[in-house]
């Protein structure tokens, strides 16, 4: 069973050490990359995999697991490089600017790949134009959580209360322009309600604390990250987003779709490469990525983490990106129209 406190730390130590070594010798791979033996065979060099988050947390393990399986799949060496900052923008910019030789890949969510350029207008990349999408590796729902002794027993209770007193219910998210916030905006629009949004300083963890203490009414955040608190009885889930069933993990919550609200956003980790890969390199990477995310090993690992292996590759992924882009554009519109 999933438990956030007992992730086997020792299995990660080795990888971390390797990362440290790489970081300490940052200059060396730069030099080597310039003169890598190029005999036409791909891959003939190690592959760098940019994770736009710090080590630990939710995203980093996904990237590391993918790289580990990619190493076997391609028979190559892979290195995870953590480049945090700017809601993924810093790492993704590095990925977009990297040589399109198949030796730099990167992780990101639709929040970083798609939403960032639309939100800030300062991003130096555009999705999908600047990337070669390889695989969507997960589709973990965002959950709507309340305190166990909250007066809201169901999603309907909360919506009913919001209708009675518009703006009274305070819901917390990590940022105003991100997938969790869009979940709230979509719910507001479709249920014709109005709530107040509070962004917490310390991310979803602190948002959960605000809800547990009763200062705020609810929090929307990555469901897998809150499973520990749900299990210990400190949080209660009312509903969750996305198209897939998550009742194995949150048996008492309803899927927004089932309740009549269409909320497509999920925590959707994707792997991409820069645009303009050689066709044989691109197809080698596509094949490998597809083999990984459709494997039983991946599914088992993902479920163990509390994430859903809701995967997509190829055309399916292109369609997903188009759909989610439309959703995000609408979310940003709704966000810009808000007064609170």
């Amino acid at each position, binding site marked *: 069973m999933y438990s956030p406190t007992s992730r086997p730390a020792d299995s990660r130590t080795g990888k971390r050490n390797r990362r*440290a070594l790489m970081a300490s010798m940052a200059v060396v791979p730069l030099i080597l990359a310039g003169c890598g033996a190029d005999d036409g065979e791909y891959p003939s060099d190690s592959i760098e995999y940019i994770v736009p988050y710090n080590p630990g947390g939710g995203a980093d393990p996904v990237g590391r697991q993918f790289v580990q399986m990619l190493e076997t799949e391609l028979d190559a060496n892979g290195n995870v490089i953590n480049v945090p900052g700017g809601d993924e*923008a810093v790492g993704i910019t590095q990925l977009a600017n990297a040589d399109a030789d198949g030796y730099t890949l990167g992780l990101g969510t639709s929040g970083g790949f798609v939403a960032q350029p639309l939100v800030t207008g300062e991003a130096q990349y555009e999705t999908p134009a600047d990337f070669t999408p390889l695989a969507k590796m997960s589709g973990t729902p965002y959950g709507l959580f309340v305190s166990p002794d909250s007066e809201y027993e169901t999603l309907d209770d909360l919506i009913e209360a919001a209708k009675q007193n518009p703006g009274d219910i305070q819901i917390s998210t990590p940022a105003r322009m991100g997938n969790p916030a869009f979940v709230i905006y979509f719910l507001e629009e479709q249920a014709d309600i109005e709530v107040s949004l509070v962004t*917490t300083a310390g991310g979803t*963890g602190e948002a959960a604390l605000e809800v547990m203490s009763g200062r705020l009414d609810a929090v929307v955040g990555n469901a897998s990250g809150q499973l520990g608190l749900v299990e210990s009885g400190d949080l209660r889930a009312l509903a969750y987003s996305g198209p897939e069933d998550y009742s194995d993990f949150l048996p008492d919550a309803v899927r927004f779709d089932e309740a009549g609200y269409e909320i497509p956003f999920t925590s959707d980790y994707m792997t991409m490469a820069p645009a303009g890969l050689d066709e044989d390199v691109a197809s080698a990477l596509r094949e490998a990525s597809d083999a990984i995310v459709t494997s039983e090993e991946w599914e088992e690992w993902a479920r163990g983490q509390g994430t859903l292996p809701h995967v997509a590759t190829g055309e399916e992924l292109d369609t997903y990106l188009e759909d989610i882009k439309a959703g995000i554009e609408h979310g940003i519109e709704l966000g810009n129209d808000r007064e609170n």
Partner: protein
Amino acid sequence: MGTIEGFLYGLELAVSPELLLAAFVGALAGTLIGILPGLGPVAGAALLLPLTFAYEPAVGMIMIAGIYIGTQFAGSMTSILLNMPGDAQSVVATFDGHPMMKNGRGGAALTIMTLGSFISGLIGLGIVLLVLPAVTGVAMRFGPAEFFALTAGGLLVLARISGGSLGSGLLPMIIGVALATVGLDVNTSTNRFTFGQVDLTLGVALASVAVGLYGLSELMFMLTGDAKRPKPKRFRIRELIPTKEELGRSITPWGRGSLIGFGFGLIPGPAAALSTFGSYKVEQSVSKHRKKLGTGAVEGVAGPEAANSSATIGSIVPVLMLGIPFSATLALMISAMTVQGVQPGPLLATQRPDLFWSVIASILIANVMLLLLNLPLIGVWIKLIMTPMRYMVPFIVIIASIGAYSINSNFIDLHIVLIAGVFGYFLRLLDFSPASLLVGLVLGSMIERYFVQGMVTYRGDLWAMVGASGISITIWALVAIVLFAGFLKPVWTTVKRKKREHVS
């Protein structure tokens, strides 16, 4: 988990070979870097910190605890040996420690100091275990209003009491607060002051600024020949053993210092520095040998050094429970925790009991390590201080650059180190306090975020936020007292004098 079982559980985790080694390496590296000319605890911890990012959280955190305690110890050691305090909290060690050195009792002073640190470390840990359940309950009640009171009030208090003229602390603090606004703002999802530079959306990393401000600028002082490099006297191992009289006279100051230090540690502010001065003041007024203080009296070393050590432990409690640091070194400790994916806060003890308790237990172990390590190695440390600059400077620059780069794998941090280094050189040349800049940088972003979050939670009503709870009101009242006590004192004395005149 109860506190005692928790602590024993942590001790059990911490005595595993891996974690013991981490504590050892941390303590050794901390002492080593703390003793290098002028680097001191802040720059030292900043330099070593990124190296801990490579390990799993428990190992990393224990190394940081070791580094923290090690650098503080080293700071006091150079105070005694060279009359060269590593930072503010070891200034007091020069008052009697260095005179003892001149009287040929420097070795004994070091032993008294080390033993005192160890004993008060033990006492401090004991108190932590006693008060922790109460603190956890209080910490759970901290919301944006309370955090805002603590951070904003803390900043105001720090500006008032950080020593030197008001301006020398206030100006760098304002610069620090301003720097804290750089980066992606989560409330509006807009980039502020990044000038189109994507890398700047990261904001200005504390560790890079610390490395530049303290480390690089100190090296510049060394190169321009402005840094003092006095030559220490040689002394024999035999001198390390204190006499029976010296030991006897140390016992009560150790006890007093421990209690004073812990009390100060819990209060937001430069706890360790205040506690050493506080303890020295107490020794000056209650000690049997108070007349001799300042001329090499052992009480002047024993009390303040014990206070220093237990203040360190006391101040770790708010860091772990609330996630709020009031000194640069502790801020670095928090950034190390967040890099490890560990969010300090009231949930830490329940969500990651393994981490929480192994850190608490490892503080004890790091203290033992220091005891075992430092006394026999004092000769080595002295040799190290004498390393020629032509080896030392490039070595430190390389370590610092690798460290800064590995924080985010981003070259922007190297640029920040460079700029902060040059800026820090002039800041210190003009006698401004670089520590205030760091504190402003850390607290500035917290203040803003808690303020905004609080204003939204309390629907724009500032007074509702200030009066949100007893905790918030109490904090603001204390802040007001500290801020205005200075003004009230002359008023008070006039009133008293008038009264006396009236009576006569």
